[in-house]
């Protein structure tokens, strides 16, 4: 399947901005299940300072504001050919040790509710348990936009009983790590049947299963990723893969507009 993506992030500032940095993780890479045909990032109001691979192997760019702009616009776009690999993205590569993916983060720390949830999952076979975990989270946490925000922790989202893909993923990571599975957060795009325009990137989780490698679980949709999914970046939680993050100097107020289209 060939999927075309355009992902625009636009910051508008009330007064011109003298100094701002934006860190981008917006470039998918070819790998098992996906081949990047073409991809580029167009930038207005800022320039690329450096491009490098981060500690999880994600292609990362640092931008700085250029010419005291009122606006910084970043448009990542391109085409990716995907295939269904039954959610298995394959063996672990890179220097980040697997045990690192067992580490808790502020957003994924497991309190009693998550530990109880994890313990309640039956089964011996690792895949069966992880699928059970996904189904349970899918069941307990309703998909609801606006109930949570980027800073909501896994515990808070579980307690709320509602959230978005980021929250489903954090809960999954938290519980999977508690069950001793190395697990990581994946940011990406999802081709949807009923719409082209979307307001945010998608997210899901991967757990490492001996013999199979990394296996994806999209608890928000209750399925493992298939040919409709494009992976961008991986990390321990949302903070590590955040598509655009940055800092700025000055008193300017900022408004953010994100527009994403994903189509065949």
């Amino acid at each position, binding site marked *: 399947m060939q999927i075309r993506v355009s992902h625009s992030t636009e910051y508008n500032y009330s007064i011109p901005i003298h100094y701002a*940095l934006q860190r981008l993780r917006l470039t998918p890479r070819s790998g098992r299940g996906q081949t990047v045909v073409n991809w580029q990032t167009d930038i207005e109001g800022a320039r690329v300072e*450096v491009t490098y*691979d981060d500690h999880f*192997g994600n292609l*990362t760019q640092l931008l*700085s504001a250029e010419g005291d702009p009122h606006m910084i616009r970043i448009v990542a776009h391109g085409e990716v050919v995907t295939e269904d690999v039954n959610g298995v993205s394959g063996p672990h590569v890179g220097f980040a040790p697997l*045990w690192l993916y067992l580490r808790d983060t502020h957003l994924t720390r497991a309190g009693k509710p998550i530990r109880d949830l994890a313990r309640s999952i039956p089964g011996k076979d690792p895949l069966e348990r992880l699928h059970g975990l996904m189904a349970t989270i899918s069941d307990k946490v309703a998909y609801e936009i606006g109930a949570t925000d980027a800073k909501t922790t896994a515990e808070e989202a579980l307690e709320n009983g509602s959230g978005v893909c980021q929250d489903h993923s954090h809960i999954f990571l938290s519980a999977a790590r508690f069950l001793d599975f190395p697990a990581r957060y994946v940011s990406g795009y999802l081709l949807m049947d009923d719409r082209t325009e979307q307001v945010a990137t998608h997210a899901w989780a991967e757990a490492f299963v001996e013999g199979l490698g990394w296996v994806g679980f999209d608890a928000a949709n209750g399925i493992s990723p298939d040919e409709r999914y494009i992976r961008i970046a991986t990390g*321990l939680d949302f903070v590590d893969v955040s598509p655009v*993050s*940055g800092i700025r100097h000055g008193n300017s107020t900022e408004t953010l507009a994100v527009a994403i289209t994903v189509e065949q």
Partner: protein
Amino acid sequence: MPFDEMLDADNRPRGPYSEYMSWYGEQDHARLLTKSRDAEAIFRKTGITFAVYGKEEAAERIIPFDIVPRVISGREWRKLAQGIEQRVAALNAFLDDIYHKQEIIRAGRVPRHLIERNEAFLPEMIGMRPPGGVYTHIIGTDIVRTGQDEFYVLEDNARTPSGVSYMLENRETMMQMFPELFHRVRVRPVENYPMLLRQSLEASAPPGCADKPRVAVLTPGIYNSAYYEHAFLADQMGVELVEGPDLRVIGGRVAMRTTQGYKPIDVLYRRVDDDFLDPLTFRPESALGVAGIMDVYRAGNITIANAPGTGIADDKAIYSYMPEIVEFYTGRKPLLENVPTYRCSEPDTLKYVLDNLADLVVKEVHGSGGYGMLVGPTASKKEITAFAAKLKSRPGNYIAQPTLSLSTVPILVKKGVAPRHVDLRPFVLVAPNRIQIIPGGLTRVALKAGSLVVNSSQGGGTKDTWVLED
């Protein structure tokens, strides 16, 4: 009886001290006491002070200086230097391995949990090889002596070892007060340290930078306890002293504001801790660092000295594995001994430590500066009981070591001289393909008779350290 470095059992001067002692024998004691007060005046005038955390009256004190030098023979030094060089090479190999393949863990020589649960392990350094492969550009190896040929490494300070300004000021003061002494005794120079440091840092610059790399010293600012040293070293090296707000990312480099606009920096000798180095990567509220410096670093466009994440190598829990680490990477037995170390995280060991607190020194795994430690033999019963409770609640946070009978070197007192316990921190410079150990270092001395705590924050003093040309 502890080993006295100056006098043997029959009160005769040992070899390295013979010339000094013959000079000392010719001196008028009252004059020496006057000189000792002069020395204090010199330190006050140069402004060499340090801040003591947790003392309200505060703040700035002079570290007491003792005018009797600590003397080490050329032969003793060569042996020490070889051991230190081997250890420093192993530490750099360990850091490279830990942030890449982790072969030492795969080989089962260092347990995984020690790295895995360690806050000093910095994920942001994974897969990052600094320019020239150097992680620790500057190391201060703390060494204690217990006998004629018995030296132990107490600590490897691989983050940002401080104290080198005292080494330099102590020497300068001694040469100013006793020029004749330096004609009689041939002492190896330490005063070229700033030049060597600058050369070593320049040699570690990223490949492809200009012919003459630009070096700068990053300080947290005037409220830092070691600010004096930061300013002193920048001045002595002839490089800029900068603070976070002076720096920003421009043109893919970290650049500093100057009167002629922003100039890129090739090597940043930073005296700011990892946590505060980059608000975009570590603590977001930090105003002491440079946003985006880690991005520039991973892109290979700046050298940060020391590299972030080196704390994993001088962690006190890792310390107990140093003999294995040295052997694993150098293929040879360590030339310098480690102090036997009990890991309180192990239940049987914890029991032993609790039963023997009165004889042991217990330290926090991540602590430094002599804070939060227990020195069993000099602690009161009440202190021991209180410490035992802390130890039981967080055993993994502590290691224990036997109380070593540290060597003594005399200090000048009202009537003559009297022995006091000392340690030694030599400074090591690491550049690609070159390790240099400055012949001398910082000798810290406990000023109270019998005390084993030499830390300046706990009332210790310093001495000039002489390595003889022989």
